[in-house]
């Protein structure tokens, strides 16, 4: 039986879907987390603790494990594990993008440098040390701008500033966020932030799979809620895109150019772009698949999940079809309206009863302290819909969301 190493942080939403895909494929899974499993001593060949922030140490530990029982593939399920997965793959000679490429994609400053050098459209940017005086730093920036940490994801810490006062407030807020105990930021990511030009326009997300350096688009998502700041909370993802075909084609071209510029060649990628009058501009290209539970909107061929495709690709197994089902689909990531303790959730049955709604999954638990953006990084849950048109999907998601009531004390 083929053995696959999955890098599964204890905080990821993706565990269930990847384990389910592995079960479907009949592969033997080795689960690696940053914290020890309660059963690690009972199953040392299948449960491993790795420091995802130390890719060399993680690769050495996995190499010793693979000496005893070889591994056929390694998959990091999210941003936190992408570089460690690449380092492990490189050490074991497994299929993956190179470590240097994944590292560049993980650092927003390095990524912009690579893309700009290759002529890929990116917003004007500047890296600023957190030890610098924010008033002086703001003098070199055009407004409006967006300040963001170098390595956090899910829009965490991303703040728009329209003037010097807002710049200084955002600068200090990001500095405080990066100093928090629950924020994994080391090296440059803990010492710098990025200030970049705010780009007006609609935002889209491209989900793709790189095979031998060629980008195959799996889905293009519209984000119909305006993302204009001051924070950039993602809510709706709807596919297929309702943008004109020529614009969709240009998004795919620019995304492929961005992957090539970074040197990404194998595995899933998640790109986010702004579409202006002059075409698409790249905000991010991450060497991982879509986050949260959003992959549940996607089905391929005769019903294959995104996780199955990712595992099959990593194993070098054939993939019958990369074509997404024709039926439009979408997800709403349920935002956290304010900080506090979640004490009650109402309306789930009513939301599930809305036409087109496939599922409503509340992931926050009653009693949980919830934190909105820009400091937070979680959602209250996810709503999934499928319908005859993208417009109907969006309407169903909005209707279902309106029927939910969260009491936060």
């Amino acid at each position, binding site marked *: 039986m083929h053995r696959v190493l999955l890098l599964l942080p204890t905080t990821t939403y993706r565990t269930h879907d990847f384990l389910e895909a592995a079960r479907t494929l009949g592969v033997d899974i080795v689960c690696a987390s940053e*914290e020890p499993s*309660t059963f690690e001593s*009972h199953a040392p060949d299948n449960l491993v603790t790795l420091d995802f922030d130390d890719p060399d140490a993680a690769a050495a530990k996995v190499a010793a494990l693979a000496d005893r029982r070889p591994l056929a593939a390694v998959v990091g399920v999210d941003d936190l594990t992408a570089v460690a997965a690449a380092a492990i793959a490189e050490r074991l000679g497994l299929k993956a993008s190179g470590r240097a490429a994944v590292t560049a994609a993980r650092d927003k400053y390095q990524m912009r440098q690579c893309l700009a050098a290759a002529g890929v459209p990116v917003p004007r940017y500047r890296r600023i040390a957190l030890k610098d005086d924010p008033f002086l730093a703001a003098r070199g920036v055009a407004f409006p701008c967006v300040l963001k940490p170098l390595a956090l*994801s*899910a829009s965490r810490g991303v703040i728009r500033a329209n003037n010097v006062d807002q710049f200084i407030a955002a600068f200090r807020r990001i500095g405080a966020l990066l100093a928090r105990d629950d924020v994994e930021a080391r090296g440059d990511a803990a010492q710098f932030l990025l200030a970049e030009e705010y780009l007006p326009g609609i935002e889209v997300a491209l989900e793709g799979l790189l095979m031998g350096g060629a980008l195959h688009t799996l889905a293009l998502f519209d984000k119909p809620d305006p993302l204009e700041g001051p924070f950039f909370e993602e809510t709706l993802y709807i596919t297929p895109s309702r943008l004109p075909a020529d614009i969709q084609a240009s998004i795919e071209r620019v995304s492929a150019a961005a992957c090539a510029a970074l040197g990404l060649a194998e595995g899933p990628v998640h790109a986010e772009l702004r579409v202006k009058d002059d075409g698409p501009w790249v905000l991010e290209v991450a060497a991982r698949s879509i986050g949260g539970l959003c992959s549940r909107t996607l089905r391929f061929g005769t019903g294959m999940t995104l996780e199955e495709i990712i595992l099959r690709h990593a194993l070098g197994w054939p993939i019958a079809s990369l074509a997404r089902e024709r039926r439009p689909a979408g997800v709403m990531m349920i935002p956290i309206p304010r900080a506090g303790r979640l004490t009650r959730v109402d309306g789930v049955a009513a939301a599930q009863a809305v036409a087109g709604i496939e599922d409503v999954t509340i*992931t926050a638990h*009653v009693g949980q302290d919830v934190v909105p953006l820009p400091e937070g990084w*979680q959602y209250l849950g996810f709503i999934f819909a499928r319908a005859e048109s993208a417009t109907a999907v969006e309407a169903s998601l909005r209707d279902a969301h309106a029927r939910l009531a969260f009491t936060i004390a």
Partner: protein
Amino acid sequence: MSEDLKGRVQELIDTMINPAVAGHGGFVELIDVQDNRVYLQMGGGCQGCGAADVTLKSGIERLIKEEIPEVAEVLDTTDHSSGSNPYYSAGKA
């Protein structure tokens, strides 16, 4: 046969599984054994935990199948959305 199997699974839960998950404030209850399938429910720190699937599939199921080879599958009946004190909570990354 099923009662015997149930008894052996229960013993394993009592002697090996629950002492292990207790470290994270969790516990496991045997709901039933039918057609060599073991139905479990997780509680405490395991209910709603971000690592519950890993614990179940790579820990509990592996252990049960090793000790009781006639067990075909271990299935989780837990309503994880009702967990009020999960050991790990998921977030988007």
